[in-house]
């Protein structure tokens, strides 16, 4: 059985017939070819698959593709379509907020969710907001600095 969905992904309407069990992350990666969204676990712990759904950060492995029907989804590919990095991307670059880069797309969306509600978070607030996103390379310190820098417009 398949169901028809229409999802606005990175500003464009995408139509598809999908199995009801298909996760949003698999639809994005395997059907739309948007492989910037990563899969780092199978228990919704790592946050590598974080995207925004109608402006809210969600782990796209916790959401079925059919649940996104009629919604707006933004993936990492949608942040700098013309190659110009946004403030958070630029801050991660300036502050060495990434090493292998695998967790980075999810980190950026989790950080954006924080900045949407708190424009000048403390380091403690940043660390708390990112506790659902795992990074094995950076020890998080330069990620915290990146988010601070983005908040400060630096």
């Amino acid at each position: 059985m398949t169901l028809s969905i229409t999802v606005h992904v990175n500003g464009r309407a995408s139509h598809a017939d999908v199995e009801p069990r298909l996760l949003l992350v698999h639809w994005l990666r395997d059907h739309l070819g948007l492989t910037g969204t990563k899969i780092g676990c199978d228990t919704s712990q790592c946050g590598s698959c974080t995207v925004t759904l109608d402006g809210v950060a969600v782990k796209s492995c916790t959401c079925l593709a059919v649940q996104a029907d009629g919604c707006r989804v933004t993936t990492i590919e949608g942040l700098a379509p013309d190659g110009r990095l946004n403030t958070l991307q630029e801050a991660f670059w300036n502050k060495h907020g990434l090493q292998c880069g695998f967790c980075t797309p999810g980190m950026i969306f989790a950080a954006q969710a924080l900045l949407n509600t708190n424009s000048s978070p403390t380091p403690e607030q940043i660390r708390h907001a990112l506790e659902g996103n795992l990074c094995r390379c950076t020890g998080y310190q330069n990620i915290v600095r990146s988010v601070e820098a983005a908040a400060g417009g630096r």
Partner: protein
Amino acid sequence: MAAPTTAAARVFGSGIRRREDPRLLTGTSRYTADITLPGQLYAAILRSPHGHARIRKINAAAAKSAPGVVEVFTGADTDGVLQMIPCAWLVPNSDLKVGPFRAMATDVVRYVGDAVAVVVADTVEQAYDAVDLIQVDYAPLPAVVDPERASKPGAPQLHTDVPNNVAFHWTVAGGDVDAAFKNAEVIVRDRIVQQRLIPTAMETRGALAQYTPATGELTLWNTTQNPHIVRFIMSGVTGIPEDRLRVIAPEVGGGFGSKIPQIQGDFITVFCSMKLGRPVKWIESRTENYQSTTHGRDHVQDVELAATKDGRILGLRCTVWAGMGAYLSTAAPGIPTILHGLMLSGPYNIAAVKEDVYGVYTNTTPVEAYRGAGRPEATFMLERLVNKLSDEIGVDPVEVRRRNLIPPFDNGHDVVTGLKYDSGNYQGALDKLLAHAGYDALRKEQAAAREQGRYIGIGVSLYVEICGLGPSQVAGAVGFQGGLWESAIIRFHPSGKAHVFIGSSPHGQGEETTFAQIVADELGVSVNDVKVVHGDTDSTPMGWGTYGSRTTAVSGAALAMATRKIKEKARLLTSHLLEAAVEDIDYANGKFFVKGFPDRHKTIQDIALMANVAWNMPDGMEAGLEATSFYDPPNFVFPFGAHLAVVEVDPSTGHVTLTRYVAVDDCGPQINPMIVEGQVHGGVVQGIGQALWEHGIYDDSGQLLTGSLNDYAIPRADVLPEIEVLHTVTPSPHHPLGVKGVGEAGTIASTCTVYNAVLDALEPFKVTSIRMPLTPERVWRAIAGREGA
């Protein structure tokens, strides 16, 4: 957007932004799982649910007829196609016994996760659906998971002809250790368990194999730290000649040692593609990753230290049972031996050491290198016992260390295990640490807090590590089945831009930037004019890979030597073009000029153009501006440092709060301090993870109880303090750039630093030992004097 570089500000030593980042920040880079080929099939692997069992029968009929399934293979199908998976570090003089390691088990499974069968289907969902339809009739066998217990008579046996599961017995000895203990005024002892860790690179392992029957060629995209070793091993196992085998490490999402070895899934994927003649992709789920990708540590250590009453260390003696898992992984035997036993004396003058290491098969996932690989286990033993000595004789742990440190040296120091350290200034690192941290003030704060019933602890550890692996002659002598040199090619294009091709394979460490900085510094070009290419065996020169903090130390040296060849050719060509004697050509800031006449010059870009068009070359000079260098290091490099942690323990709950962490590391001159600092951050946090949270746990039947990220606790952002990172700079005397290596430093130092801090906090409770990780329950039990600490 471009990173700022000018000739005036030296680019070597500048914390410029990474050239890797824009593609990673925009999701446009491609990791193995992101690549899809036309006609591609998907593989899903059926793995043993038992720690140890005999396979009676496999029935795959239902799976074979399931929707979308192309084929199901079992181990028997690989007979005559795949050889055994080899172990590539055959440590000599250790009676090494390699248990046969098949890509898929046929008669006996020996760990939870041992591969049994594979389904290949049109979609990944169909492949996993069909795996569930395969019926395997297992006869469970007794299992053993603890390496010491496995080595005792009567334990369940994993392999025939490996009595007591002992894969090898290796010893290292130097000096008269019996006399040291006979003459000792103080002996301190401990039993330390270096618990099993699961590396948890955020990208799991996977492979995409494309075999073309008409040509016999294989292209393999693989999550690896060392594509050239993959080609070598894969060729040996499959029989595909190396010239027809191309291995590509695309973007790789961290490794930490777990992407050194070749694991069952790699061979299974290649096998499926060989049999079906179509591209086949296999990507681990995280749960599969925890079972099938290699683990780290897993030592049981009995260790004792002999000293005088005034704290001078006379000798160290220990026995280690190192769990190998069910089979010997690629580099496994070298880790608890060469990379561990040779570093027993650390930064101290110790005249006598002896260690017995038993590598033991257990019904667990194979153990491999994990960040630090042998050196954290050695550092922990030594630094823990130095603290015990301090407690025993009532002298401050820092002072005990001072009384034993090797004095500063800048060009070689022989230690008791036979190594020659290259350079070190351990006092310098310690002094800087104590001054920055305010050690004396911290001790006062600690005393004041105790008056108020608060338990603050201060931990200090030093370390010296063996890195930059290493001279190939030594590699051969210690049984490593390969070389350890690196090569680099630098090729200038007519426009003055350059490509660099290296055989090592960075996967997050930033060498696309730091290696461009080396070229920029040596030849005066912009960092942005140098592209560093790695990770494809068809386009890069031979190299042995990225691990053991060796990429900058060895591959970087090869590149530096190649740039110097370019410089020499440029001098000769300049002399010809300017009609000046070659002795009169000087070089500065990217310009080759006639001495005393700086206006008579050629830039490196001029030379690149003239060499490439080759209109006017001197007699005998070849066209082009390109150089290749092979660098085989004359010795290892030995980075070092001193770390300090401050913790507070809540005795009512056993909860440990890490309140401060200070790291002083010395990796020689730093090419990019921002990247060095990032390496220290990540390394320190992984080591903290071992001390406080991480533990790969098996039950007695061999079930992995920590089989997902729900159960295995890697550090999260909200449980860590800001890490204060400082450095001293002691160049390596034998490296062309003086650099050492920093990838593993943080992990080597931090586990024992944090552990020592917690035990220091618990001093009023007379707690002298707790098993890691120091979870609240264990700490609470130790304080309460209960079992199970």
